[in-house]
């Protein structure tokens, strides 16, 4: 079976682990247990096994360990819709990713869409779409847009590799 490494990146507590668990186990927990290092899960999507690396979140004290990114076929960038600064930091994150592993397919999840403090203004959204990223307003709590997030990423990777093979 075809296998692909996927990395979840984003600031701490934005919901990377929650999104992964929702997608892989269809479960959700209110408890916040910060990820240390990386946690690995896998799930089969369309005959492809996605090995999901749920990397520890970034904060001012601990920048993400970019070594975890190497060999990733695609990236899920996650921000917390209730904390606008986490949306802002997606841009610097993207730079770090590109610097480490080059251009790979990438999707963006603005998470906690269910939360009433969720807020994403047009300016922010335009800035993100201008990067060519697919934006998903997700909720790990309700599961909203979570399958779509991974599905679109997997398709994008498939498209890239088949183009690569033709070339």
């Amino acid at each position, binding site marked *: 079976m075809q296998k692909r490494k996927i990395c979840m990146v984003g600031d701490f507590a934005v919901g990377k682990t929650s999104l992964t668990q929702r997608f892989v186990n269809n479960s959700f927990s209110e408890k916040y247990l910060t990820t240390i290092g990386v946690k*690995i899960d896998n799930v089969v999507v369309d005959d492809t096994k996605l090995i999901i*690396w749920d990397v520890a979140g970034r904060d001012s004290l601990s920048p993400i360990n970019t070594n975890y990114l190497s*060999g990733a076929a695609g990236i899920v960038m996650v921000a917390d819709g209730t904390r606008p600064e986490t949306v802002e930091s997606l841009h610097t994150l993207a730079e770090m990713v590109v610097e480490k592993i080059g251009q790979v397919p990438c999707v963006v999840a603005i998470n906690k869409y269910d939360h009433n403090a969720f807020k994403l203004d047009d300016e922010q959204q335009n800035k993100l779409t201008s990067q060519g990223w697919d934006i998903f307003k997700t909720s790990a709590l309700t599961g909203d847009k979570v399958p779509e997030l991974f599905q679109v990423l997997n398709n994008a990777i498939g498209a890239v590799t088949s183009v690569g093979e033709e070339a």
Partner: protein
Amino acid sequence: MSQLDELRQIIVGDNTEQLSALKDRIESVEERTRDVSEVLAPAIDATMRRDDSLIQALSDPVSESLKRAIRIEPDAYAEILYPAIAPSIRTAIAQAISSMLATINKTIESATTVGGLKARFKSIRTGVPYAELLLRQSLLFRVEHLYLIDRDSGLLIGECGAEDQGLMDSDAVSAMFSAIQSFVQDSFSGREDDRLTDFKVGEHTIWIAHGPNAMLACVILGDPPAALKIRLYETLESIRIRYAEQLQHYDGDASQFARLDDYMQPMLQSQLREEELPEEKPKLQMGPLLVYLVIAAALGYLIFQALDRESKLSTLHRYFDEAPGVVVTKANWQDGKIVVEGLLDPDATLPFKTLSAHGIEQEKLQLNLTPFRSLETEMELRRFEKELDPPEGTILSVENGVLNLSGRASVIWLLRHDERLRQLQADRRLGLSNLFATDGSLNSYLATTLNIPAGPGRSEALAKLSQTPWVEISFTEILRDLLRSNRR
């Protein structure tokens, strides 16, 4: 009523009855017991909610009393506890038995193999009991799982190992190994080539061999010998060589790694034998040694054969050359036979006996010899002996390389061979200057054949003939002389 009682009555009123009732209640044990029993449960609840002082206070007496109770009535307690502890005991025992079985299996296995024999020998040599050695060997380690992991992505390329290891999903394990790798690198040195190679998880040892594109992680139960690490790297190396192209461009599609198992499986099978590895390493390997021996033997045989053939040829030359009447112009081996070319006098005898004593059998010889007459004196001698059959009193001899027939022979014999003798003398093949006729035969010849009557003439003739070599005798001359003297 005393003054005090009066005063009390004034202050508290008329409740003496109540007081005495209270007093009774306090003083009566039964009353008190009933009172306490009413509040005991809520009181315990309350203290428990407040803090654990009650537990602390009770723990000692409770455990003491429990001990005593169990000692008095163990069966009853065992019965009560059984449902609670039996399952855990069962699993513990099952585990112990299964691991013991594995050990016994391995022990039996190795007892009946070469390894077992080795251990037996080692036991004799070292004095360590055989069973102990076997157990130690068997318990030493077991390679349980191998993971070939793409270095970049941590994606699993291939794996091999026992199914029931209770490990999590191999893809996750593989990624985890890779993640640990990154974590360690990042935390310790940040340098790319500082790699995590060994770590232990409980009873398991994990060794990771690193290649440029892939790493090979090996999960081992127990304490592996250092030699196993060499094996691990050798395995990775052979995989690296075989799948160089695929490893470099691995994109998660493991189908390109056909027959990868062939490379990994031996690591699992190596297991216990490894213990002997460090000792064996420097020894010459048995396989190659045999090949060397065979080659050496073959070479030796070829050389021996060549020498033997050569020496047989020279033996043949020597004896044929010595033999009279044989001239060898060429002798060589052809299809296992010695082909001899040359000349052979029909009278010559070939030295077959001598040759066979030197290992050259007659049937090994193919003689292409052209007949010829040899003038060698030896041959001549033999030929003349055969042809002339020299009578007694004569001798065939060689003097200065010349054959001579000397002595005295009967006239009859001399006459019979007269022509031949003269011819031989003329050919210088035979000297006859010392060949005389015997007196007796001369006398009878003169008397009977030549009819010379007895008398001085005959005696004179006889005396003369006796001194004249046969070939110089001229009977005509003798007769003429006789006639001349008779006329006188």
